[in-house]
């Protein structure tokens, strides 16, 4: 009997793994393009939302994609990864991608900045794994809307995320109640990206 052999478990494990890995690899190959397209689309939507480019609620994924292609210019070498929003060759805004470690996993998103290089037009996340209902509320419009029109502070932290009880000013927004960990990390991620923006673009401009 083959089953009494000492190497039977090894062979068995091998065959079972071959079976399941074949199914999984085929399935993942089959869906790979779709997953990749979803990722891209999520990024494109985030850029458009950060720049507050309005699209109707009924807009299809194709509409979003076409608008993106039409209006957004991919970053060039001198722009440090910043995407540019152009219309009729006029620069209307900048989209600054950022990323960093959240509570569970990296948070990736885009900050939209107006041509004055100080006013924020909006922010949007395209990848995050924060706790649903808590940290994940950073993707909700109510939280994101707070950033519209805020100014990047020249001194100190560019932006601040404050407790709900605290007063707000031109450079601060309210945190999400209950999601202390995410809020602290998110503030750091945003400020890391904005500090870089400040040194590259704002201070550069000031010197000129």
């Amino acid at each position, binding site marked *: 009997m083959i089953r009494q052999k000492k190497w039977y*478990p*090894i*062979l*068995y*494990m*091998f065959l079972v793994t071959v079976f399941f890995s074949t199914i999984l690899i085929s399935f993942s190959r089959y869906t790979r393009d779709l997953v990749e397209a979803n990722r891209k689309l999520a990024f494109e939507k985030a850029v458009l939302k950060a720049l507050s480019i309005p699209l109707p609620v009924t807009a299809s994924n194709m509409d979003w994609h076409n608008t993106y292609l039409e209006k957004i210019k991919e970053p060039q070498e001198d722009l440090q990864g910043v995407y540019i929003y152009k219309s009729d060759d006029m620069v209307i805004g900048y989209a600054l991608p950022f990323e960093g470690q959240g509570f569970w996993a990296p948070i990736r998103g885009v900050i939209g900045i107006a041509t004055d290089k100080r006013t924020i037009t909006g922010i949007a996340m395209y990848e995050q794994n924060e706790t649903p209902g808590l940290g994940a509320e950073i993707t909700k419009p109510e939280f994101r809307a707070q950033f519209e029109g805020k100014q990047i502070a020249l001194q100190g932290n560019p932006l601040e995320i404050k407790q709900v009880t605290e007063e707000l000013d031109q450079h601060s927004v309210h945190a999400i109640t209950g999601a202390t960990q995410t809020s602290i990390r998110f503030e750091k991620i945003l400020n890391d990206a904005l500090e870089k923006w400040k040194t590259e673009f704002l201070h550069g401009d000031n010197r000129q």
Partner: protein
Amino acid sequence: MIDILTAIFIISSTAAGLAAILVVAERFFADYGECLITINNDEKRTVKGGGSLLESLTSEKIFIPSACGGRGTCGYCKCKVLKGGGILLPTEEPYLSAEEKKNNMRLSCQIKIREDIDIEIPEELLAVKEYKVICKKIVDLTYDMKQFIFSLQEPAKISYTPGQYVQLFAPKYDGNTEEVYRAYSISSDPADNTIVELIIRLVPNGICTTYCFKHLKEGDQALLNGPYGDFRLTDTNAKIIFIAGGSGIAPIKCMLHHMQNITCLREAVFYFGVNSEKDLCMVDTMRAFEKTLPKFKFVPVMSRPEHPEKWKGETGLVTEAVLRNEKNADQSEAYLCGSPGMIDASIVVLKKLGMKESNIFYDKFS
């Protein structure tokens, strides 16, 4: 394509490598050598360590009844462990009462044998043997019930108490990949200890009954073990009420044979519940008992006769017939065999008739 195949191969090899580590580790760490099991201070068996007590006893042909196959979910395989069982495991606790715990009762499927062990089991379990048998005759009783007569080969004789059951082994066959044992009451005449007769009713998709009905032919070899069970007649002279349904007739038939053999003169009534004419069987055998046992009466009860005009006997549920015919049962004993529903209903009725619960004996199909 090549890269996919390489990937599959590497992943599978990794998994196989891990399996290899476990196989090797088992050789080095999980090898406990030979251990001695002492049973009832007397019998000694040497087994390979590392397995469970239940498994080891089974391999020694000592069969402790068990229903779940060693998963620790049925709690039947209890036995007394005097030495070497290790401490009580959390997996056993739910099945043992405080008193049983005090008496060192354990679940034999949960105890692992790592050293010599002393246990105590009922003597009769030691009498339990495995029998090689040949199927001598198959008789159709009804459309879904058959009588199987097995003649014993090795050992050649069996001794049992009427009312006990044996376990029939169902091997693998087409459409079944599992080897199982199923319990069936012995229905033969205990005077002939070279045969075992079983009455089996077909359970749709049942592993063992499908084997018996579709695969087992006259002249085939089969395996039995037993006898088990404590469903047996008492030694009193009280009046007996037998109640059975379907294949529950088997142990009652065996008991009646026994009463005939010892010319027992106890008063007895047998209420046999069936659905309709097509389920009725063994009427002639029972009428023959009525002739040889002067105080025995056979009462078939049909719940839904197809031809009510022709049916002269009792109708309705078997419990209704009991209520109609028995007046006072406080001095009687009852022996019940059949489905749980029938037994529970009968117990209610018998108690209503004044019977003490301690005088009701039953064998419930599960």
